[in-house]
C-alpha cells in the first residue's frame, strides 16, 4: 500500500508541473515547474530500485539543466515576453496529432504483454553500473566523452561574443 501511495503522489508531482510547463505563459514559471517534475521522476527511480540513476538525475536535471535554462531566460528576455503570441499557427493540427498519438500509445502500452524475465536487479546498483560502463558499454562511454568535448567547443564558438 505504501508503495502505491508513493507512486500516486509522485505521479501527480511529475505530471502537474509538466502541464504547467506546457501551458504557462510565463517563462520563469515554466522553468521553475520543470524542477518538481524532474524531482518526481527521481522519486520514481528510487521506487524502481535505481538509486544511482536517481542521484544523477537530481544532479544533472534538477541541478544543471533547470538552472541553465533559468540563466538563459534571464540572459535573453528577463522572463517577460508574455505579450507575444503563445501558440503557433498549426495549433489545431499539432494538438490533434499529439492527442491521437497519446491515445494510440496508451492503448498499446496497456494491451501489450510485456515479456517477463526471471531474476532480480543486482543489489549494489553503483557497482553494477560501474561494471557495465567498463565492459558492455565501454565504447559508448568513451564516445560520450568525445561528444561532451565537441559540444563544449561548439557551444563556445556559437556563444562567444564578437569582438
Amino acid at each position, binding site marked *: 500500500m505504501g508503495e502505491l501511495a508513493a507512486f500516486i503522489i509522485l505521479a501527480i508531482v511529475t505530471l502537474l508541473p509538466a502541464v504547467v*510547463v506546457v501551458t*504557462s505563459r510565463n517563462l520563469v514559471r515554466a522553468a521553475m515547474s520543470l524542477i518538481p517534475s524532474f524531482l518526481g521522476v527521481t522519486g520514481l527511480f528510487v521506487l*524502481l530500485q535505481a538509486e544511482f*540513476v536517481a542521484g544523477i538525475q537530481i544532479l544533472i536535471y534538477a541541478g544543471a539543466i533547470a538552472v541553465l535554462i533559468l540563466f538563459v531566460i534571464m540572459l535573453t528576455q528577463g522572463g517577460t515576453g508574455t505579450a507575444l*503570441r503563445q501558440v*503557433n499557427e498549426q495549433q489545431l493540427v499539432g494538438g490533434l496529432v499529439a492527442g491521437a498519438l497519446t491515445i494510440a*500509445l496508451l492503448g498499446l*502500452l496497456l494491451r501489450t504483454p510485456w515479456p517477463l524475465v526471471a531474476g532480480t536487479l543486482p543489489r549494489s546498483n553503483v557497482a553494477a553500473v560501474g561494471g557495465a560502463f567498463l565492459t558492455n558499454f565501454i565504447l559508448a562511454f568513451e564516445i560520450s566523452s568525445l561528444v561532451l568535448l565537441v559540444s563544449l567547443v*561548439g557551444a563556445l564558438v556559437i556563444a562567444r561574443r564578437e569582438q
Partner: protein
Amino acid sequence: MVPLPAYLVLGALLFSLGMIGVLVRRNALIVFMSIELMLNSVNLTFVALSRHLASMDGQLAVFFTIVVAGVEVVVGLAIIVEIFRSRATVNLDDVDLLRG
C-alpha cells in the same frame, strides 16, 4: 509492487505532454523545455523496463540519455542566446527570414 503498465502509462502521458508542447507552443525556450520532458519520459520508461526485465541495460541507457540531454542544453541554449543577440527575440514567429 506497482505494476509495470502504471509506470509506462505515466511515461506515455509525460511524453505526450512534451509532444503537445513541441507541436503547439511557439517560444523556443518552451519548446526546448518540452523536449526535456520528453527525454524524462524516455528515462522513466527505460528504468521501469529495466526493473521489469531485471537487466541493467535500461539504467545504462538512461545515463547516455542524460549525457545527450545535457549536451543538447549546452549547444541549444548557446544558439538561443546567439539568436537573441542578433534579433532580440526567442519567439519562433519572429524568426522567419527563411521562407519558401
